[in-house]
């Protein structure tokens, strides 16, 4: 069975873990003028439950 030859230094461990980063998702404004909340693109707005372009919206939720 393969085993590590050397102890992993705290420096190496911390350098590796410093790369675990989260990135903010790009959001869009809801097309519903009454809502206007930020939500994920190509998803229904969780605030008002509508989906679609400004002129062609429909209630999904």
């Amino acid at each position, binding site marked *: 069975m393969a085993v590590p030859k050397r102890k992993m230094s705290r420096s190496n461990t911390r350098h590796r873990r410093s790369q675990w980063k989260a990135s903010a998702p790009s959001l869009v404004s809801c097309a519903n003028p009454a809502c206007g909340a930020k939500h994920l693109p*190509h998803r229904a707005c969780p605030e008002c439950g509508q*989906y679609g*372009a400004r*002129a*062609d919206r429909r209630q*999904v939720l």
Partner: protein
Amino acid sequence: MPTPKKGARLGGSPAHQRLIVSNLATALFEHGRITTTEAKARVLRPVAEKLITKAKKGDLHNRRQVVSTIRDKGVVHTLFEDIAPRYAERPGGYTRITKIGPRKGDNAPMAVIELVTEDYTPKAKSDKPASKTAAAPAAADTVEETPAAEAEETPAAEGTETEVVEAEATDEAPADEAAADEAPAEEAAADEDENKSE
């Protein structure tokens, strides 16, 4: 489990996948709209549409083929008597999938799959020149709606985009869905531009 030709594998075995899909189809025809994971919705969609196509033919052989998937005879009756006549003129595209974001708990991407209830309005003929003329007014509409987004895009990019939209539209009957998929991105660009100008 054999590799499916397309889409995700559900359950652990072919029998389990068939059961999951048939139960989803039964629930969809019973309720008209169901909320499920995106992967299940994508597997369900072609199955459900083929069942509706069989129901539109409406004879005994097709009914027996549908019963082999949907075991609930009451649901089969509503499918043949209520749902199929609604789609008499519609050439496919009977269902619509709308993504609604991740589920709380396991962060699974969820979607609503529903039977299209709108009346079918035929688009322009799918010939090449006709589709070009159809694309032009659509592009004009986007120009009117989002002038800021239009200004940033080069004409070449705009041309390819409208062609892509048109290709999607000609593929399937619910062209409004393809347009709806495309539109929020443009809306988003417009909103960002508005924010910048403020």
